[in-house]
C-alpha cells in the first residue's frame, strides 16, 4: 500500500452554514492502482484529493503515505509532495515564462537536481510522450491537449509513487480528452505509478479498474 486515508471528516463554513463534505471517508491506494472518483459538484471530490495530496488538512482522520502518518501541517509536507506525489489539475497551470521541457523539469529542480540533468530527464519523458516537436515551445504556443499532456509529464517526471489528477480533462474537447485518458492508462501501465483521478466523466471512470462515487461524504465502490 502506498497511501491511505482513514475515516476522514471535513467541514466547510459557508456564511452561517456548516457543510460537511467528507463524513468518515476511507481509501487505500496500492501500487499501480488506477482509481477514478466521481460525484456531483460540491460532493467533496476535490477536497478528498487535496487532503490526499497534503494541500488541505482534514478535521479528523488519518492520512498515511508509504506507511507513515502524515499531515499537511508538517514542516516537510512540501518535501513529501515533491518526492512522492504528482499533481494534475483541471487547468494546466504551466509557468508561462518557461518552455515545455523547462516546465516539466520543475519538480526535479525543486528536488535539487542540476538544471542540465533535470532538462535532460524532462526532454526524455516528453519524447516518450510523443511531444518531441514541442520541447521548446512556450505554453501559449501549445494546444489545450498538449498543455495538459505536458502538465501530466510534469507530474510524472520525478517518478512519484502516486499521481493525483483533479478533473484532468475537464477543460478539453472530447478528442483531446480521450488522448489524455489513453495516455494516463498507458503511463500507469508502463511506468507503474498509481493514479487517483477525480472526474465528472462517468463513462471514462467506468472503464477504470477501480472506480468510486463520492456521495453523502463517503466513497461508494461502483
Amino acid at each position, binding site marked *: 500500500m502506498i497511501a491511505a486515508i482513514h475515516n476522514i471528516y471535513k467541514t466547510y463554513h459557508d456564511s452561517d452554514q456548516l457543510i460537511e463534505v467528507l463524513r468518515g471517508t476511507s481509501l487505500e491506494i496500492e501500487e499501480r492502482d488506477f482509481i477514478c472518483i466521481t460525484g456531483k459538484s460540491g460532493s467533496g471530490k476535490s477536497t478528498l484529493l487535496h487532503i490526499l*495530496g497534503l494541500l488541505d488538512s482534514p478535521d479528523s482522520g488519518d492520512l498515511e503515505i508509504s506507511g507513515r502518518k502524515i499531515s499537511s501541517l508538517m514542516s516537510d509536507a512540501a518535501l513529501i509532495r515533491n*518526492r512522492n506525489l504528482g499533481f494534475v489539475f483541471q487547468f494546466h497551470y504551466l509557468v508561462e515564462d518557461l518552455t515545455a521541457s523547462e516546465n516539466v523539469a520543475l519538480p526535479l529542480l525543486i528536488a535539487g537536481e542540476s538544471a542540465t540533468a533535470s532538462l535532460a530527464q524532462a526532454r526524455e519523458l516528453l519524447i516518450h510522450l510523443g511531444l518531441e516537436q514541442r520541447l521548446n515551445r512556450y505554453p501559449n504556443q501549445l494546444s489545450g491537449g498538449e498543455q495538459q499532456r505536458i502538465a501530466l509529464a510534469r507530474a510524472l517526471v520525478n517518478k512519484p509513487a502516486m499521481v493525483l489528477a483533479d478533473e484532468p480533462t475537464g477543460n478539453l474537447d472530447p478528442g483531446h480528452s480521450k488522448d489524455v485518458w489513453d495516455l494516463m492508462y498507458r503511463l500507469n501501465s508502463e511506468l507503474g505509478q498509481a493514479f487517483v483521478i477525480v472526474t465528472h466523466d462517468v463513462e471514462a471512470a467506468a472503464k477504470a479498474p477501480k472506480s468510486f462515487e463520492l456521495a453523502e461524504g463517503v466513497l461508494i465502490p461502483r
Partner: protein
Amino acid sequence: MDRLEAFFLSKYLQAPKRNLFRFSFVFMVLGIVLSVGILSAGLNLFEGYESTLRNLLLDSFAHISVQSSDSAYLSREQAQEAIAKLNKHKEVLSVIPSIHYPLMAQSGTKIRNANLRAYDFAGEFPYAKYIENYPGELQESEIVIGHYLATEMGLQPGDNVSLIYPQLDRISPLGIYNGQQSFKIAGLYRSGYYENDRSIIIANISDAEQLLLITNSISKLEIRIRNPQQARELAKGLSAILGSQYTCISWDLYASSLLRLVEMEKWLIFIVFTFLVLIAGFNVISSVSTIIIDKGNEIAVLKTLGANAKSIKRIYAYKVGMVAILSVVIGQAFGAFLSWVVEKQTFYRLKGDVYFIDTIGASITPFNLLAVFVVASLLISLCIYLPLRQIDRIQIISLFRQNT
C-alpha cells in the same frame, strides 16, 4: 541560492526580453528612471557647483598669503628674503609679491568700490587666463578691471577710469586728501567668481606704489602650492620657517565655511530627492503586488510541486529586481544627460551676487554614482521585499478553488 532560483535567474539573464520586459513594469521603470535621474542630476549639479566654486577660489586667490605681522606692508628686502626661503620648500610652486588695497573707481558720475591687486608682471602671472585678450604684461598706467565692474560703469577696453585712494592719514584743513590717478583699461577680467569679477582691478606694482604713495613695499606674498587641500598645515610649517614677523594665512581660512555650507546643501538635496525614489518605490510595490495576483496560479503550482515560499519570493525578487536595478542605471544615465543639458543651456545663468558664480557646471564623481546607486537600490529592494511577503500567506487550496 538553490537550484530552482539559479535556474530562473539564468533564464531571466538568457532571455531578458521575454522574461523581464512586461507592460506591468512600464510605470515602475518610468518612476525609477525619473526619480533616480532627478536625484543624480541634482547631485551632479551641486557637485559641479561645489567643484567650480572651489576651483575658482583656488585659482582666484593665493593658496597661502604671507603678510607682515606688525605692519601693513613688507619691504622689498623682507619680501626677497622670504621668497628665497619659501622657494626652497618642495610643496611651494610659486611665490608672487603683490599689493592689495581697497579703493574706488570713478568714471564720469559713476563711482564704485573696488579691490586693487597689483603685481610685478616680469614673472609668472597666475591670473592671466581670466583676462580677455591679455597683452602679456601691463604697461605703465594700464589696468585690467573685472567685467561686471566694467559693465556697471559702462566701460570697455581702451576707456579711461580714475582710481581714487582716500588717504585717511593725510587730512588737510580742506578735508581728506585723496590720491587719484587715471588709468587706461587694457583688458577685462572674467573668472566666473562674481566677487572678483565685480570688484577686481589689476595694476602694475609701480603704478600701485605711485597711487598709494608707498615705495619699495608690497602688502603680501601670494603662494601657490602643489596640494591646496593641505594649505592649512603647510601654512603652519611656513610660519615656522619664516619666523614670527610674518603671518601665513591659508585660503581655506576664508572659504572653508562657504564650502562646508555648499557641501551640506548638496547632501540636503540628496536627502530631499531621495524621497522621490521612495515615491517611485510605491509604483514598485504596486507592480510586485500585481505580479503576485497575476501569477497566483504559478505560485500555487510551485508550492504544490514542493518549492518553499522563500525560493518563490526570491525568484520574483530577481525578476523585478533585475528590471529595477537596470532602471536605476538608466536613471543615472538620464541624470547625467540632464546635467549635461543644464550645463550646456544658455538661456539661464546663475545670479553671481547670490550664488558667487554665474555658470552652472556638472560634475559626475564615482562616489556620487555609487551613493545614488546604493541608496536607490536599497530603497527599491525594500519596496520589492515588502509586497513579496504576501507569498507566505498564499493558500494553495484557495487559489485552486477560485479557478474551479
